[in-house]
């Protein structure tokens, strides 16, 4: 019975992947490299192959993801160290369920919050429309915090007690023990948490759709609008037909490739072990 459950979930994933590749791969082969490197995306005016360029969308996805990870990683890892090593029990009792609650908030709620609070704030402070790369960074960094914090906290707590006790017995201070012993020993888990957070950020659709502006251009500043692969697929799939629909599936394949690469890195990082 358990074997059947396992096989059925593998089959479901395999069928989904097969479906996406069957729908998108012929278009990807037909469009060739221009699909990835051209900058013109005009799906409803499809007389030329150059009009199917998703380069600005790929750049938008990467900028939004890397920015969110750059903001979220220091705060997330610091919070994880705080939770694992420094926080008094009462603070931990409040913070751990709070972080879990943060993970449970649906992405549309984050998008709603971003649209009504962050976007007007950016518009007021920095001008422009407010819907921008910066708004997407702020929302996504909040969304990836629980992933980074919970996995990093677990990996820091999983460091053998002897490491910490040995370091303190040698005369190292609390901070020296954290910086030179605990964090390096937990680095594989911390790196894996950051990569999984990156996977969440690159795959996020609804919140980004609501705050990023959805303009298929390479942003010239962080206050300019942009679009991501997921947001573009979600926006256009409702009315896409024919080659346009196939192009969206091809975008799905590109996104799938990104996620697979990130997952591969996460697996590699989590296998790495530091021994003393």
């Amino acid at each position, binding site marked *: 019975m358990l074997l059947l459950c396992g096989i059925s979930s593998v089959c479901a994933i395999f069928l989904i992947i097969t479906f996406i590749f069957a729908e998108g791969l012929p278009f990807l082969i037909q469009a060739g490299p221009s699909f990835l490197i051209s900058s013109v995306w005009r799906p409803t005016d499809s007389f030329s192959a150059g009009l199917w360029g998703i380069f600005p969308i790929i750049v938008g996805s990467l900028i939004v993801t890397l920015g969110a990870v750059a903001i979220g990683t220091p705060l997330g890892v610091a919070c994880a160290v*705080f939770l694992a090593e420094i*926080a008094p029990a009462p*603070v931990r009792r409040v913070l751990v369920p*709070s972080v879990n609650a943060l993970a449970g908030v649906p992405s549309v709620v984050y998008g709603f*919050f971003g649209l009504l609070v962050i976007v007007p704030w950016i518009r007021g402070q920095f001008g422009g429309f407010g819907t921008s790369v910066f708004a997407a960074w702020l929302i996504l960094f*909040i969304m990836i915090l629980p992933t980074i914090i919970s996995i990093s906290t677990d990996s820091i707590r999983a460091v053998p007690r002897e490491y910490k006790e040995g370091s303190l017995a040698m005369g190292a201070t609390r*901070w020296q023990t954290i910086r030179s012993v605990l964090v390096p020993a937990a680095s594989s888990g911390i790196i894996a948490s950051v990569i999984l957070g990156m996977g969440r950020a690159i795959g996020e659709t609804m919140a980004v759709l609501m705050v990023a502006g959805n303009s298929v251009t390479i942003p010239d500043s962080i206050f300019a609008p942009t679009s991501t692969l997921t947001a573009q697929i979600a926006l256009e799939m409702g009315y896409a037909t024919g080659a346009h629909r196939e192009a969206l599936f091809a975008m799905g394949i590109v996104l799938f490739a990104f996620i697979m690469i990130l997952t591969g890195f996460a697996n590699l990082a989590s296998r790495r072990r530091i021994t003393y």
Partner: protein
Amino acid sequence: MEAKRRELVPLALLWGAGIATLVILIVILAYILANGLPVIPGTF
């Protein structure tokens, strides 16, 4: 004593990170509840 003083800044930063996370959560939850709860009795 000197070592303890040097420790103060990184430890304060770690406290700051923890509290900042808590503040972010409270702001989001408070915003959702403050805007959503008053509407519920009239709508449903």
